[in-house]
């Protein structure tokens, strides 16, 4: 009762602050309720439904299928290793780009920033198409290399291989990691870097002992964000289906393999729980002040 009264007519600054916070958070909770909590509840219900087309009865057959069928273990493994590999590569490239942008007076700096960031705006499906246009059998780069080496373009085309998919993922992930890291690199204590150099540290050792510890939380944040994005990429893998990953499989379960809503829901739930736990762990790691390398 008191809580309601202090909300309606707050008397202290603390009450007013609580009310402001509640008002500011309200749109998020409304959105989260209808956009996340309810659909997740529906997914959970659907994953144990006996009926294929409606939420009726109770059956754990979809979960049993996920645990026993080797193809789902393979999908989980593919999803994890591929997201990890593309994330590590993308974050490494982003570290170099962000470092260069923060550290040096580069010519055409604005152009470089625009070029690096614009792939964020491209749908995954377009990225996949670009890879085909560049690295497919009739691709521009494939035929250019074939022209200079005398090889057959069909042998050189990588668009529909795991390598092509890797390029497609990286094309989307590098800008995301760079955007996160640019902020981190902009706040580097350059005096500390110069102090290290004056004490005899080479540029590489300065980076190792002084720069890297400063940007480490940013790198972890970039890894968390980029890894989550990598797990969620769908359009690119739809165009370049070189590897069976979770998002592609959900699509297959719903469309090509019949209307397997229970199995698709179970995969979706595992996917959500994994990302939630991973994000929570990542945020905890970033918040940990004793984080040192």
């Amino acid at each position, binding site marked *: 009762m008191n809580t309601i009264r202090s909300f309606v007519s707050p008397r202290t600054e603390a009450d007013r602050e609580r009310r402001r916070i509640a008002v500011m958070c309200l749109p998020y909770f409304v959105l989260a309720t209808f956009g996340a909590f309810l659909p997740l509840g529906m997914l959970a219900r659907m994953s144990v439904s006996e009926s294929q087309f409606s939420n009726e009865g109770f059956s754990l057959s979809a979960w049993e299928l996920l645990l026993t069928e080797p193809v789902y273990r393979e999908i989980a493994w593919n999803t994890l290793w591929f997201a990890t590999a593309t994330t590590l590569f993308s974050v490494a490239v982003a570290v170099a780009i962000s470092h260069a942008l923060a550290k040096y007076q580069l010519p055409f700096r604005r152009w470089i920033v625009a070029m690096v960031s614009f792939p964020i705006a491209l749908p995954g499906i377009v990225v996949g198409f670009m890879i085909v246009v560049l690295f497919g059998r009739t691709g521009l780069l494939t035929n250019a290399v074939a022209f200079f080496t005398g090889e057959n373009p069909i042998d050189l085309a990588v668009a529909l291989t795991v390598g092509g998919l890797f390029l497609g993922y990286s094309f989307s992930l590098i800008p995301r990691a760079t955007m996160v890291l640019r902020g981190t690199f902009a706040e580097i204590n350059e005096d*500390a870097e110069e102090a290290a150099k*004056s*004490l*005899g540290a080479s540029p590489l050792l300065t980076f190792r002992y002084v720069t890297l510890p400063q940007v480490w939380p940013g790198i972890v944040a970039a890894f968390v964000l980029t890894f989550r994005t990598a797990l969620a990429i769908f359009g690119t893998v739809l165009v370049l289906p070189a590897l069976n990953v979770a998002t592609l499989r959900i699509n297959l379960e719903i469309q090509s393999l019949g209307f397997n809503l229970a199995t698709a829901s179970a995969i979706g739930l595992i996917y959500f729980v994994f990302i939630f736990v991973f994000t929570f762990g990542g945020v905890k790691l970033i918040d940990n002040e004793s984080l040192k*390398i």
Partner: protein
Amino acid sequence: MSEVTLDSLTKRYDEEVAVDGIDLTVRDGEVLGVIGPSGCGKTTTLRTIAGFETPTEGRVLFDDDDVTHVPPEDRNVGLVFQSYALFNNMSVLDNVAFGLKMQGVDKEERRDRANELLELVGIGEHAEKDPRQLSGGQQQRVGLARALAIEPRILLLDEPMTGLDAKLKKRLEEEIGSLLDELNVTTLYVTHDQEEAMVMCDRIAVLNDGRIEQIGTPAEIYERPANAFVADFVGTSNAVSATIEDGRMDLGFATYDIDDIPETAEGTAIVRPGDFRVGEGDIEGVVRDRYYLGDRVRARIELPNGDLVTVALDPSTENARTGDTVSLVLDPSGVHVLRSE
């Protein structure tokens, strides 16, 4: 330690000249202060010696070694920053030992030497702490110990006291001053605070617009400024038009015998506030304003010809109030005459 020489050093950024043909020698074991207004080229000079700026023209010599194009990590220069620039991911001890680690000194020895230096700067008990747990003054001591640990050829201090409170600053001035004397380290001390430079430095170079206006001991700079800029920048001064004829100096409001400029000349007399005192003198003036500064009172007095002069009064004996007419005595021995070009 080394003697450090800047030979016709020039640094330009596009069209802007930051340092304009400086010739400067920091003698072995000397503490040389560099003072000047903001943007005069102090920090650029320091950064060029450290190797973080490459001069557009001229050379940097450590003894006879030309280090103009040697990278910073190979110069063996100790740098102390205004911002402290400590490594917050390391303990205080590891900060001080960092340079020794880069030199390949083994762990045991570098710990011993770092501990020694921390004791020397008076913060031995904080060795294992995170630098962020220390006060500003303590952090600056860590910065100093870290720079000294590598036994640098020259120690460069870039406004090390800026940002510290007045009392701490005074204490650090004394401590660091005596430490530098004791260790006999060749030091370049950049500051905008002339009083700090006078306390800390054996000689002072006054910079303006990238050029050196004067180099000399603190007393020379203060008492015998080379030009109007130095006179105006260092301390408070009254610039009074003067005519010298046959050993007599006519200031317009009074005439004095002086010894050191015998010939006829037109010029500007630099009269420091302390050269005046209230007494039975032949200069009459009206006190226009006065500021109590604790150990002295600074007053501005209007002379009969309309000129305003700043005068330092002893608050215990000279209690002139605003609006009072006072009689001033000028000690001509402290007056320095700048002859017109």
